[in-house]
């Protein structure tokens, strides 16, 4: 972990440089580092380590490949509304090859990729965006005369780490959707792990949250390794929980308050979207905790009133109809709910008040009678004793 004191060392050279280089204030920079550390679920103090790693600007080289995709992942990274995000991305990593962003074209671009692979052999990060068509030897996607399959294999061979960004690269995504009339997708679109035959880190989503990608990259930068992942290669910090578990509308689900149609009363009141087909209950992602698009609280599909389509979950996103009701992975909503009216209690009923009065009266009466009898017998005994005490005296006086 980093040293927290370094963060508060105002005279530190590194921070000045970061301020200049990124053109952001020190406060914004540290805030950003803290956000990233929190997104990754790292313990307190990690932000200092993150800040140190970012400011030292080792800038790992990145080769970014695009295949069957819409460039949405790149767009979401670049168009994040946070004023410094895109700047940071481009500052943290050294983007050696990226078809959307590079100025070069044609053979010049291909040369740039090969040069970068040679110069940074074994050190660069390979990021893959888009699915890889595999049918008929992958002829459906070619760049510079090479098929996507060949490109990804050759680039991955010397990479330090491979990250699949977006659902397409993660498992095939939308291009891999199978029509009900056939048994495979038209081009045999597959994810990176499938093509390489080994697990890679995946950041699924359509598009994925830029912070999840950035946090993964910064984790690599800070600790020299990729974060802990689940069996599908997804970083656990971002994909460890169902959207449903932390959903802001969860209380409505538990209470049985559902929107039944778009625009109905429940929908306008922000009720649960489960019955409109929300896939939150079967989709693992952190959308419900960190939101999306940097536009403030509640700015994510469910927050805007649309059911989650499960874009980051294989077999759910693009596969199940958007308004089909989700399969519950944990608690299924009951058909009947207990009332949520709070009983405040009733006053005395005639019967209960009468019963109390009768018993109290009977007890009081019995106590009085018993006391009286005890008193009477005591008085009689006392009188007898007095008489017995007086008798001998009487006898004496009589005698």
């Amino acid at each position, binding site marked *: 972990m980093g040293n927290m004191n370094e963060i508060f060392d105002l005279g530190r050279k590194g921070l000045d440089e970061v301020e200049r280089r990124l053109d952001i204030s020190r406060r914004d920079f540290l805030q950003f580092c803290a956000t990233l550390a929190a997104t990754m679920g790292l313990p307190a103090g990690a932000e200092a380590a993150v800040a140190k790693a970012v400011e030292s600007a080792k800038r790992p080289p990145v080769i970014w490949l695009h295949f069957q995709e819409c460039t949405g992942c790149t767009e979401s990274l670049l168009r994040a509304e946070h004023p410094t995000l895109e700047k940071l991305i481009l500052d943290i990593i050294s983007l050696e090859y990226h078809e959307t962003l590079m100025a070069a074209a044609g053979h010049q671009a291909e040369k740039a990729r090969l040069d970068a692979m040679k110069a940074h052999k074994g050190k660069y990060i390979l990021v893959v965006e888009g699915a890889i068509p595999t049918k008929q030897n992958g002829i459906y996607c070619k760049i510079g005369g090479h098929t996507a399959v060949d490109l990804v294999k050759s680039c991955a061979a010397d990479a330090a780490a491979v990250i699949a960004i977006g659902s397409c690269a993660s498992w095939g995504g939308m291009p891999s959707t199978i029509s009900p009339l056939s048994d495979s997708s038209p081009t045999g679109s597959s994810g990176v792990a499938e093509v390489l035959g080994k697990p890679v880190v995946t950041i699924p989503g359509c598009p994925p949250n830029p912070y999840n990608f950035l946090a993964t990259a910064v984790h690599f930068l800070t600790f020299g390794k990729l974060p802990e992942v689940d069996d599908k290669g997804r970083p656990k910090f971002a994909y460890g929980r169902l959207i449903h578990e932390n959903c802001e509308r969860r209380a409505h689900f538990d209470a049985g308050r559902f929107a039944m149609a778009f625009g109905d009363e429940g929908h306008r009141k922000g009720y649960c979207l489960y019955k409109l087909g929300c896939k939150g209950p079967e989709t693992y992602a952190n959308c419900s905790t960190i939101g999306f698009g940097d536009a403030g609280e509640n700015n994510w599909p469910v927050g805007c009133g649309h059911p989650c389509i499960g874009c980051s979950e294989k077999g759910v996103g693009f596969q199940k109809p958007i308004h089909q009701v989700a399969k519950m992975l944990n608690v299924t909503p009951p058909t009947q709910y207990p009332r949520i009216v*709070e*009983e*405040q*209690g*009733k*006053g*005395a*009923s005639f*019967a*209960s*008040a009468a*019963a*109390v009065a009768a*018993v109290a009266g009977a007890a009081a009466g019995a*106590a009085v009678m*018993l*006391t*009286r*009898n*005890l*008193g009477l*017998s*005591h008085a009689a005994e006392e009188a007898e004793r007095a008489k017995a005490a007086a008798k001998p005296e009487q006898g004496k006086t009589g005698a």
Partner: protein
Amino acid sequence: MANHQHAAPAPVGGSLVNATTLVCGVLIAVMLAVLVVRFVFGLGSVTNLNDGYPWGIWVVFDVVIGSALACGGFSVAMLVYIFNRGEYHPLVRPALLGSLFGYTLAGAGVLFDLGRWWNFWHIFAPGYANPSSVMFEVAVCISLYIAVMWIEFSPAFLEKLGLTEAKQKLSKMMFAFIALGTVLPMMHQSSLGTLLVVMGTQIHPLWQTPLQPLLYLLTAVTMGYAVVLFESCLTSTAYRRKIELHLLTPLAKVMLGFLAAYLVVRLGDVVVRGALPRAFAVSLEALMFWLETACFVAPLVLLRSEALRRNPAKLFLAGVLLMLGGSLLRVNGFLIGYETGDGFNYFPALPELLVTFGIFAIEVLGYIVITRRFPVLPREAATH
């Protein structure tokens, strides 16, 4: 106590069927019917309990007051075994019998009141229990005490069954159970007061004091002696026996000592905390406070002289008043002086009342059956 020669306890004998036992039987049958409904359809079907008043008369009467009234055994045992006043030994068994019923039924009463009663064993399971809870202390301590009391009382059954050898073996270890039987009630009777401390500002200022544990302990002891007075007067009237005035008169003096100590602490606490002005407000709480205080003060006046303490009528009345005063202290704290927020309201429902009546009927019936059939009351030369 070895120095004292007392008449050995013997069964009273006589018929078990009379007006009192029949009435008790009917009340118990009604209670069982209500309990069937309660266990099938839940607490809401027979009680007026709600989220604001989760504790009603089943807890306050059957458990809190019931166990305090059952302190006769503990109070007399303390006097005999701790203060070595062996002359009171004949009072131990009957007092213990009352305690046995009071506590065993208090334990059963808790079960009736538990919403999810089938989880009752959780409090004894280390994985579930929360040892920092007052409720935990009360529950474990009362359960232990019930077991200890049955052991303390078991010689009465062993004698009846002719198991003299077992009785002799038990009597060698009895001192340990007697010691436990004196310590345990002190622990949980004060903890019952701590329950009110935990409720904090929900309790009316007249009863909201950190001294509640001490007040509950002092009143439990006092009520224990009051119950012995009450019980002795009642049994001697009902069974036409001689009243044990030679024991009750000095016992009343001990009781008055505890009572005076209680009143000093109680009233001193109300004054020191500045709650006294609330006692002069026009409110139900203030009225109940004065009623409660009057019940505690009256016995001091009633039994002020030795001559008055020899009058069974006065002893009986003082006993009844003290039992009432102690009960009022508990009802006032737990129900009348308890305010949990706007709109909440509680008055026991009729079926709820019938269960409490039934519980008290079990105690009366049990007392009659056991004293008539088992050696509890001292043998008496036939004077009538």
